[in-house]
């Protein structure tokens, strides 16, 4: 999403006490951000329901509750900037501009899906919008983001790359090796850890030697910032700083978004490692969409009728997306070996 920034006088006129997000982006962009957060949530609810009804097979990892980090980060990126995503990547994909119809089609295994039915939920990608792909391998996307940033530097194309990953990923060697290289070569990359408290069943406290993932940044001589991952405003402000720094050739940063996933890890989670109360508290007290709506209303960006209109609009887009997916054709088994290698004339 290329957030539209206010320019010159318009930017200055607004209250200087407003949070960065509300000073920097115009109202239309902010309403668009809310709409996308709804799109993410309803997309995942729709995917979950389709899964329950046996229309989608395999498994999926839902990011419901984590929409603010995907949105807050992607707000600062242009369509040319790139991201690498994770197994919990539907939000990143939508925030970066993917079309939910083609995402649903992928989940339904159809030829019209982003991966032509080959990838499914865990490999969702929209390369045209700069999403280099979700990843089935924890931390698998982190070095790839660094490679994309190396290209950006070599080609001097001005692109910035964001690597999304979870708290669990910070204990893979790939994370450490990638951060080190990004730092020594001053690459235009932003590492975004979505710390939802758990890697599957294992809490950060049990899996990670340092208290915060952002503490790791010091070891690789880059800034490490902790933000409330459920606040679009906080995430967007940190993202802006890190993206500017990357674009100016000053090197990488690490942002840790503290957040929470409402659903189980995947479709086979008995939720034995956390309490109902903990889940309840996040869902009722800290919901990122509710929080954003309150702010938007407080700052006069939208009213209740406007919110209702967004909800209805999103519901229509989701229903149409599912319909599109259902009606799309299945891949032909004769093409099984297509895409293994590049076809050459």
């Amino acid at each position, binding site marked *: 999403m290329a957030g539209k920034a206010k320019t010159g006088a318009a930017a200055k006129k607004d209250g200087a006490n407003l949070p960065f997000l509300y000073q920097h982006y115009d109202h239309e962009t902010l309403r668009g951000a809310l709409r996308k957060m709804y799109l993410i949530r309803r997309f995942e609810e729709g995917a979950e329901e389709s899964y329950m009804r046996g229309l989608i*097979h*395999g*498994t999926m990892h839902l990011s419901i509750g984590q929409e603010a980090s995907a949105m807050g980060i992607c707000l600062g990126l242009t369509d040319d900037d790139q991201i690498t995503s994770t197994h919990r990547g539907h939000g990143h994909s939508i925030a970066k501009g993917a079309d939910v119809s083609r995402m649903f089609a*992928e989940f339904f*295994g*159809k030829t019209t899906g982003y*991966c032509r*039915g*080959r*990838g*499914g939920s*865990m*490999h969702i990608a929209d390369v045209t919008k700069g999403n280099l792909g979700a*990843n*089935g*391998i*924890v*931390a*698998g996307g982190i070095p790839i983001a660094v490679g994309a940033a190396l290209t950006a530097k070599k080609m001097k194309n001005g692109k910035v790359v964001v690597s999304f990953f979870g708290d*669990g*990923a910070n*204990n*893979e*060697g790939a994370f450490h090796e990638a951060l080190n290289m990004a730092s020594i070569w001053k690459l235009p990359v932003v590492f975004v850890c979505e710390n939802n408290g758990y*890697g*599957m*069943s*294992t809490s950060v406290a*049990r*899996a*990670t030697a340092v208290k915060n993932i952002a503490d790791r940044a010091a070891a690789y001589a880059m800034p490490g910032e902790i933000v409330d991952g459920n606040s679009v405003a906080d995430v967007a402000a940190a993202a802006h700083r890190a993206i500017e720094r990357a674009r100016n050739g000053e090197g990488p940063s690490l942002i840790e978004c503290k957040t929470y996933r409402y659903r189980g890890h995947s479709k*086979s*989670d*008995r939720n*034995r*490692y956390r309490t109902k109360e903990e889940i309840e508290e996040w869902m009722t007290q800290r919901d990122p969409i509710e929080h954003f709506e309150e702010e938007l209303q407080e700052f006069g960006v939208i009213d209740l009728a406007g919110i209702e209109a967004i909800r209805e609009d999103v519901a229509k887009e989701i229903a149409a997306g599912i319909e599109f997916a259902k009606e799309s054709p*299945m*891949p032909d*088994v004769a093409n*099984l*070996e297509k895409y*293994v290698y590049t076809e050459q004339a």
Partner: protein
Amino acid sequence: MDAQVETASRELSYAQAIQEAMAIAMERDERVFLMGEDIGVYGGAFQVTGDLVERFGTDRVMDTPISELGGAGVAVGAAVTGTRPIFEFQFSDFATLAMEQIVNQAAKMRYMLGGAVSVPVVMRFPAGSGTGAAAQHSQSLEAWLGHVPGLKVIQPATPHDVKGMLLAAVEDPDPVMIFEHKLLYKMKGEVPEGYYTVPIGKAEVRRQGADLTIVATSIMVHKALDAAEQLAAEGIDVEVVDLRTVRPMDRETIIESVRKTSRLMCVYEGVKTLGVGAEISAMIAESEAFDYLDAPIVRLGGAETPIPYNPELEKATVPQVDGIVKAARDLAKGAR
């Protein structure tokens, strides 16, 4: 044959049989412990460890961080120095992250040190396709590890065998890699109570037959048996050999079977080219059994592609019963 007389038995699933084997191993030997991602309170991604953490505690059922290379290496180091770790990979695909420790360290340490140490580590790999988990969670990599001297690589196909072979693996002084097909976890079968072992390195004839030999691995054993039933109705008598161990391979049982039937087909899920079937075929071609063959050897293996997500495509990447029936019929009739 099994090392001990089998007593009472009852039905268990393949996953339950593994769990029981690990519990017995821990009860019998206090040096045995389990390591892996989410094997504690979560019970393992496939519920194989289940509630073992409640029985044995977190010191013996250790959740690791998401650190396959380090975790496998820690297991190797612990094994070399006097313990008996059983390390669970959440998916066999993640062996790729730990190849360094498996291939360069675990497999070679004893040899490089001139026999001064042993590496009695067991690694468990939930493997195979059929769950809609796509390219990075569905692979069959047993041939990769089977290529490495110093490792033992097994693929038990039944609840009975997985329990006995796991208990044999824990006692084995060398590193044993167990590939467990995910679609087998829920399969039920008779499993003797208590302790027993099934030897590593011995294939098993699952069905006697006169017309052709199918050597199959893991879940393909069951598909081959189904195919054999269908072919029996047509008057084609198939012998099914369950390979059970990829390395060291049981040459005698396969040669013996081919001597009897004069026709050989290999069925395995891993990618066909350079796979387990290539080794079986080459082994027969090099042996005296070559003279017994009345027809060229046939291999049915995985397609030359990553595993796709779409269920129809996914099915098409691995041998299915229909394909086995057809290929076996052609082979038995001598048609090519």
